[in-house]
């Protein structure tokens, strides 16, 4: 089946055989309708590098025009190996370093944490089953998070710029980075060190962008064409079935057809920014590494739910920050990561990945359950809801059953997911509603994601100074 695998192979063919100026343009040698390049230049450079290696081993794999649809066992091994090498060089070291730098836990728990993060089924299935290079952009973003959390701000922002220049979807993470760094500058005082830091950061960002886009800055037309390929605003609010608010809403009301184009863009813009504004403002005013990670989650989730032209694979952008907070809220994180994998079910079934999905999800669940003892960590304090429930109890004094509610919700959610999976696999959808199961999967996932959006926003907003003082007293 021609899909992302053929797209990547085609990009290697294009980048090695054509000059840079023709990469993003429609031409006789480069038919943009057939898997045209629609990622930023760093992806193109990566494809070029892989193409050089492919040329050394077997030039037939990337011969212009004649290698379309090429499939052989050796070629498959090569392509899969490129994903593995990229993973080994960028993503896995970042995860290992992140776990090593965690404070106040034993080595064994650090290893268990790293194992759980690396076992996250969604990334493994999409990168190695469906075939993509998400580990590169997510890895760079993780290096960015590491740098910025441990005060290596310039290197962190450089890494994050590389991530954005690899896949434009990383822009989902850009606001938290911006707010966190801005907050740091404010804290250091805008008249002194803060201002210096701000200038340095701006220079780093600009320099890295210029470096990546250098061949495309020579002509205005080049830059514009690349931007047009990266942000196809001519397409609609959403494509295919995705666990997004708009797709779910369109089950009841076909907004895609009712409203004109620019209104759709405006609505989605407004909703996205309204939903992420509170957390971002809080991060700017009180920058802290912990708040930064949680804000990454809520921002990315807001973008996923309300933004334009979202693909179901974009949930990985939310899953990465959630993996980072696995240590702090193991129960909710594991639950979220399971739902995120489930939300991609239609895509995985299309790729015939049912058995690997089931196996990896089970392995991940068992790993998390044994490493973190998640079922014992459902008290209010463990769920970081203590301050919130104290505030609620001011108005409803008998409201003490948060943990119980959440446990019940978890059970319902898991049972629904298992049931839907079984139904999708065994039953045929009715004639009049051929997409019934995909829509149901999206609907259920969307409800779960909305719940998580509310939850993460609550945690961030109620993580007040009181909470921090209480921990110090304890």
């Amino acid at each position: 089946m021609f899909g992302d695998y053929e797209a990547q192979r085609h990009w290697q063919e294009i980048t090695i055989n054509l000059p840079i100026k023709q990469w993003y343009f429609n031409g006789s040698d480069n038919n943009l309708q057939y898997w045209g390049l629609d990622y930023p230049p760093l992806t193109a450079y990566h494809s070029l590098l892989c193409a050089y290696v492919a040329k050394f081993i077997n030039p037939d794999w990337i011969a212009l025009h004649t290698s379309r649809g090429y499939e052989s066992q050796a070629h498959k091994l090569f392509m899969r190996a490129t994903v593995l090498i990229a993973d080994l060089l960028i993503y896995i070291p970042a995860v290992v370093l992140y776990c090593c730098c965690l404070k106040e836990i034993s080595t064994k728990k650090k290893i268990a944490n790293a194992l759980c993060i690396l076992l996250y089924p969604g990334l493994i299935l999409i990168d190695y089953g469906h075939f993509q290079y998400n580990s590169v952009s997510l890895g760079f973003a993780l290096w960015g998070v590491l740098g910025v959390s441990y005060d290596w701000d310039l290197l962190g922002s450089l890494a994050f710029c590389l991530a954005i220049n690899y896949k434009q979807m990383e822009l989902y993470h850009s606001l938290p980075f911006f707010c966190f760094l801005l907050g740091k500058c404010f804290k250091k005082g805008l008249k002194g060190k803060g201002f210096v830091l701000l200038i340095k950061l701006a220079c780093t960002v600009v320099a890295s962008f210029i470096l990546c886009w250098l061949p495309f800055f020579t002509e205005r037309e080049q830059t514009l064409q690349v931007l047009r390929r990266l942000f196809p605003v001519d397409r609609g609010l959403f494509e295919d079935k995705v666990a997004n608010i708009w797709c779910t809403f369109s089950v009841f009301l076909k907004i895609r057809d009712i409203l004109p184009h620019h209104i759709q863009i405006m609505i989605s813009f407004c909703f996205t920014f309204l939903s992420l504004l509170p957390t971002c403002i809080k991060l700017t005013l009180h920058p802290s590494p912990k708040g930064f990670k949680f804000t990454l989650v809520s921002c990315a989730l807001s973008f996923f739910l309300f933004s334009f032209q979202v693909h179901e694979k974009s949930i990985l952008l939310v899953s990465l920050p959630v993996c980072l907070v696995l240590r702090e809220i193991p129960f909710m994180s594991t639950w979220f990561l399971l739902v995120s994998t489930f939300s991609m079910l239609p895509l995985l079934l299309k790729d015939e990945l049912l058995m690997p999905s089931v196996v990896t999800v089970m392995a991940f669940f068992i790993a998390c359950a044994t490493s973190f003892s998640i079922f014992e960590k459902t008290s209010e304090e463990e769920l970081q809801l203590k301050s919130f429930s104290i505030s609620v109890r001011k108005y409803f004094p008998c409201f003490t059953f948060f943990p119980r509610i959440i446990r019940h919700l978890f059970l319902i959610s898991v049972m629904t997911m298992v049931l839907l999976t079984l139904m999708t696999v065994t039953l045929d959808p009715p004639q009049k509603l051929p997409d019934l199961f995909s829509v149901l999967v999206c609907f259920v996932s969307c409800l779960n994601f909305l719940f998580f959006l509310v939850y993460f926003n609550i945690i961030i907003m109620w993580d007040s100074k009181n909470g921090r003082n209480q921990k110090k007293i304890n």
Partner: protein
Amino acid sequence: MAALGVATGGGDWFSALALGVTLLKCLLIPTYHSTDFEVHRNWLAITHSLPISQWYYEATSEWTLDYPPFFAWFEYALSHVAKYFDQEMLNVRNLNYSSSRTLLFQRFSVIFTDTLFVYAVHECCKCIDGKKAGRELTEKPKFILSVLLLWNFGLLIVDHIHFQYNGFLSGLMLLSIARLFQKRHKEGAFLFAVLLHFKHIYLYVAPAYGVYLLRSYCFTANKPDGSIRWNSFSFLRLISLGLIVFLVSALSLGPFLALNQLPQVFSRLFPFKRGLCHAYWAPNFWALYSALDKVLSIIGLELKFLDPSKIPKASMTSGLVQQFQHTVLPSVTPLATLICTLIAILPSIFCLWFKPQGPRGFLRCLILCALSSFMFGWHVHEKAILLAVLPMSLLSVGKAGDASIFLILTTTGHYSLFPLLFTAPELPIKILLMLLFTIYSVSSLKTLFRKEKPLFNWMETFYLLGLGPLEVFCEFVFPFTSWKLKYPFIPLLLTSVYCAVGITYAWFKLYVSVLTDPPVGKTKKQ
């Protein structure tokens, strides 16, 4: 919720290991499978569609039934489940039929029957003492043994990729060993008799069982210095053992005796028309012998001692299973290999008789029998190394000396299985799994025995590390050189000879340690 929490979060590491490896086996379902897949499909078809009288005569497919009757009954039982997956696979004429449902059924049947192996490992863990245990779970001998057995690399790739049913058969053997350790001798004997009628390759280790049961079970007591006390012989025990073996054999061969088909059955079970070496030489003594013969013949041709016209055309390394002659050294006949094997196992048998050391001594004799028959047997498959590797795991967590022998044997034995998986997609799998298993086994055993002298001397370390460059050469460098067309057999030859050196060394070292062990002071176990 609490129960789930206990089950997942509690201390049941054994279940976690078993479940983890089962999940890995599920991931290996779509990998390459060898002709053994078709063999077993054919046997499902034969046992399901034909009456018993035809089972050992049917020859539509080239893969005729050549395992003893219990295995045929096993396939018959499986076929009744198979018919719900895909009826077509049970048709004898559907040669090479492998629909996706057939694949799923066969793979699941291997994974399911491995439950017996898991149970056997659980029983074996009870038999080793945990005196050396540290406080850490991962340093306990039971934990290390469970990982070495459940996640054994050789068993994983032979059973779940190449496709065979060694899991539950090894489980039967380990279970019978465990029963002997637990002094339940009659059950151990029964299990071994059953095992023999599942796969007759276990005849290799039958002498160890026979001598041990005779010496340590039929003779109920020893003199203070450990030698035999003739008047303690118990006829009752001997007869009960004989009765068990007789009843099992009657159950297995009885129907075929009634049909007068025993000669046919035996001719299927013991086909001696095949050659000394399998298509890919098993890394045993004869591999070294044949390599030496080849070297000498090349030297002889260069120095004009040999007449080129007298050299037979058939080359042992051309990859076909045929009969052939050696050129310089004397040719080897089946009888010669039998005599060599008998001579090789005799010292260990004598040790078991004259210096019985309880179940541990029995286990060492068993491993030596398995290894000796691997070294000198006729038409040995490289997969037979698993017969020695799996029981050796039990010894490896006991003494440092045994651990070092185990590591050499296992690493070279596992590496010698690489040519079984020659397809490109399996290359990363086999390398990664092998690295994982080897690194784990070496590091865990080194940690377990860190208070004693180091496990390897410099020569052994060098040899083991040499496996890396050998693999790189055979799989990555050689295919791009010009020798690939002229001498395509070189990687197989090199692998075979290099591993044969290691396995011979391990066999020799084990023999020396058995023969030089101080007698009977340690009858604590008895």
